[in-house]
């Protein structure tokens, strides 16, 4: 790979979707339905470039390419921005552009006839730009800018159907909740800059590994930066926005909540892994947060009835998995799971979208027997379910097995067993969803139909990727070759990749157990779910109400804030408004006085001047008689005057 062409290509990747955004947002009325093709064209080229760079990087075996330029210069202290390309970036590039491309193609069918069609594509393009910028950044500053842009675009996309109150509320909730995490992230960045005086990843990595920063500081930095990841990747306790965010269009859910935005948090942790490698306490926090989130979200997914909410909880759970993997040192495993998860979760979301599109329903209790009418959707959905459950040879099996063996090998047995139970739950709720949706008989009036080609082709493509990507990477260890952190923590990663037979068998067993249970309960209906729900009714209600987290937040944060706001509002009205009004009154009074002054004196002077000129002209114009003799008389009189003066003086 020639190094010279890499930089223009890197710039081109986000630039093309940016152009598509500009065209669609400013000329939306003109382009109309062509908005989709503009966006798709742009992202296709970006996708091809990403593929080229990805394979170029594999073949050439180069580690990192970095391009810097000065942005701000304060004398000795300058801030540089720049782009970089390494294994992590390349993998993320491929994931993001692939899913973006497929989602955009899928949206042609799904969003057909929407009144804000071109706007939708503009937002999608801009979201892609922000995400690509986040991935390509070689420093924290550009990453943070893109990070916030991603947040903004997700707000716009979740609340895309803002006529629905729930949608606009969900957008706000997502935005504010992630902002809570971003606050921590920003604080962490400032702390990092104050000790490192640079934002560049490479320089910071060198600085950290040199050991000049105390471990305590690094722990704090790690935890604060992880706050950002918690917000974006919907980890406990900031997971509440993700289920609500399902109010957005389903392709948006697929893009944002499966492959890109939520993965940004995981990416952030992976990118800043050089800090965590030297901050064991922060690492523990990461690991346990991820583990808890994984099982916590999975348990909620067991009872959810909205097809998209089940997937949302599943996403939270799987993100917990990735964070967990990173927390126990499984850098490669975490990223691997991110990659495979991006594909099969996007497939699940798009499949769910197809179901919703075809049936018009979202509640799985009202569905059933859709498989007969929607064969392609069913088969692709099945592939995705098998992948997420961890059945070989689907990709999920490999990545999940890697995550669990990383946990096992690191010696965190609690984390390992929790992860295994989560895997069981995952298999169960996914197949519960599958059986309830596609098998049995219809439980309500549904006139389902298969979705159009623009929607099924992305489904099939993603299904293909879900099958092969895991296998491709594992054989020959290509992924590990590409995405590895570096020699210094290989020890921490333990025997990752060697694959403990115990772990492999365990994960396979729990997956099959989960599927079998779902099969008995929802396909054969041997065990009544309602009976269990009744028996375990407190637990059931707890899960159904999502552990009352929203209610707790409402009581703990929202209500007090509202109360305080009310009080402050009253304070505002009484005191501040009084002061403001008083000063306003004084200003008014002064203005009136000034007005008077203006009118009488200033205007008087001005008008007086005008009046004088006018009247003077009135008087003097009589001199201009036009009669030559008058003029001569005056000249003669002037002569008299001159001579008189001459005589007197």
């Amino acid at each position: 790979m020639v190094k010279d062409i890499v930089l223009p290509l890197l710039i081109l990747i986000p630039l093309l979707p940016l152009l598509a955004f500009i065209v669609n947002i400013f000329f939306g009325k003109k382009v109309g339905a062509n908005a989709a093709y503009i966006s798709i064209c742009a992202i296709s080229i970006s996708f091809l470039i990403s593929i080229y760079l990805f394979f170029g990087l594999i073949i050439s075996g180069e580690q990192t390419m970095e391009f810097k330029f000065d942005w701000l210069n304060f004398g000795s202290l300058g801030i540089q921005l720049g782009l970089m390309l390494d294994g992590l970036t390349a993998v993320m590039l491929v994931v993001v552009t692939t899913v973006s491309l497929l989602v955009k193609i899928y949206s042609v069918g799904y969003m057909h006839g929407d009144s804000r069609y071109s706007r939708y594509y503009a937002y999608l393009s801009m979201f892609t730009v922000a995400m690509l910028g986040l991935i390509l950044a070689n420093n924290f500053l550009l990453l943070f800018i893109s990070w916030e842009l991603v947040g903004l675009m997700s707000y716009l996309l979740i609340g895309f159907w803002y006529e629905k109150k729930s949608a606009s509320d969900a957008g706000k909730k997502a935005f504010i909740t992630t902002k809570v995490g971003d606050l921590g992230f920003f604080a962490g960045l400032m702390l990092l800059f104050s000790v490192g005086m640079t934002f560049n990843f490479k320089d910071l990595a060198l600085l950290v590994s040199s050991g000049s920063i105390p471990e305590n500081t690094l722990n704090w930095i790690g935890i604060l930066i992880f706050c950002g990841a918690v917000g974006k990747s919907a980890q406990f306790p900031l997971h509440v926005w993700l289920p609500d965010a399902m109010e957005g269009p389903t392709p948006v859910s697929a893009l944002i909540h499966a492959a890109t935005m939520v993965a940004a948090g995981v990416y952030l942790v992976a990118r800043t892994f050089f800090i965590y490698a030297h901050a064991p306490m922060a690492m523990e926090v990461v690991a346990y947060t991820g583990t808890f989130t994984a099982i916590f979200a999975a348990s909620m997914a067991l009872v959810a009835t909205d097809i998209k909410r089940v997937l949302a909880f599943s996403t939270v759970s799987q993100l917990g998995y990735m964070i967990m993997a990173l927390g126990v040192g499984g850098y490669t495993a975490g990223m691997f799971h991110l990659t495979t998860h991006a594909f099969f979760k996007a497939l699940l979301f798009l499949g769910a979208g197809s179901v919703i599109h075809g049936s018009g329903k979202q509640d799985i209790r009202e569905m059933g027997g859709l498989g007969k009418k929607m064969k392609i959707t069913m088969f692709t959905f099945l592939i995705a379910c098998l992948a997420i459950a961890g059945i070989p040879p689907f990709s999920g099996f490999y990545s999940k097995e890697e995550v669990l063996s990383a946990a096992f090998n690191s010696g965190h047995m609690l984390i390992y067993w929790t992860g295994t139970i989560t895997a069981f739950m995952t298999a169960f709720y996914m197949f519960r969803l599958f059986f309830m949706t596609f098998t049995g008989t219809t439980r309500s009036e549904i006139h389902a139909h298969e979705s159009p080609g623009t929607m099924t082709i992305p489904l099939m493509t993603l299904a293909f990727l879900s099958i092969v990507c895991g296998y491709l990477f594992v054989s020959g260890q290509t992924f590990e070759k590409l995405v590895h952190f570096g020699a210094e923590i290989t020890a921490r990663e333990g025997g990752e990749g060697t694959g403990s037979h115990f772990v492999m068998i365990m994960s396979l067993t729990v997956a099959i157990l989960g599927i079998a249970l779902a099969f008995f309960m929802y396909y054969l209906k041997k065990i009544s779910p309602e009976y269990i729900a009744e028996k375990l009714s407190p637990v059931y209600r707890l899960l159904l109400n999502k552990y009352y987290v929203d209610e707790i937040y409402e009581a703990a944060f929202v209500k007090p804030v509202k109360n305080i706001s009310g009080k402050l509002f009253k304070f505002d009205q009484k005191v501040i408004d009084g002061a403001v009004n008083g000063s306003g009154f004084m200003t008014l009074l002064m203005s009136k006085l000034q007005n008077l002054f203006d009118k009488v004196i200033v205007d008087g002077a001005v008008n007086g001047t005008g009046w004088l000129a006018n009247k003077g002209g009135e008087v003097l114009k009589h001199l201009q008689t036009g009669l030559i003799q008058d003029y001569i008389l005056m000249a003669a009189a002037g002569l008299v005057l001159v001579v008189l003066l001459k005589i007197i003086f």
Partner: protein
Amino acid sequence: MDFPFFNGQLITYGFFLLFATVAIASALLVVSVKNIMHSALFLALFLLSVAAMFFIFDADFLGIVQILLYIGGVIVLILFAVMLTSRVSSQLIQQTNEQKFLAIIVCIFLFGMLSYVIFTSGLKGFERPLVEGGITRNVGQLLMTVYVLPFEVASLVLLAALIGAMVIVGKKDE
């Protein structure tokens, strides 16, 4: 030992006073009579008396030029102009405007002050001897030698005035 009242200069002075009186009287009539035709004729008388003064001051050539040019040319021109224009020359029409008194006051002031200036100027008049060979010869020589350029320019001015007058008057009305 001349008798003071009968020397040659006194006679010259007497003639001068006579013609001066005529000139002043006719000039006053020129500016005051109502009939413009009479005014022109009084102008002729005025010019004649001025020509006579020129003769008294030994400026024979100038006197002749005065008679030829003014009385022969300018007066005829004015008479023609008067006849061409004065279609309404009634005695009843006021020939002077309303600033008559103002003008008289200004003129009296000017007269008084300029007289004062003249009498306080300290100029001394003395009898210059006559030029040898006659004054006319001298003037002719000077005009052809020292003042030849002004002389030629004056001829050009006359030519321009001639053509100009013809163009202005001869222009057809639209």
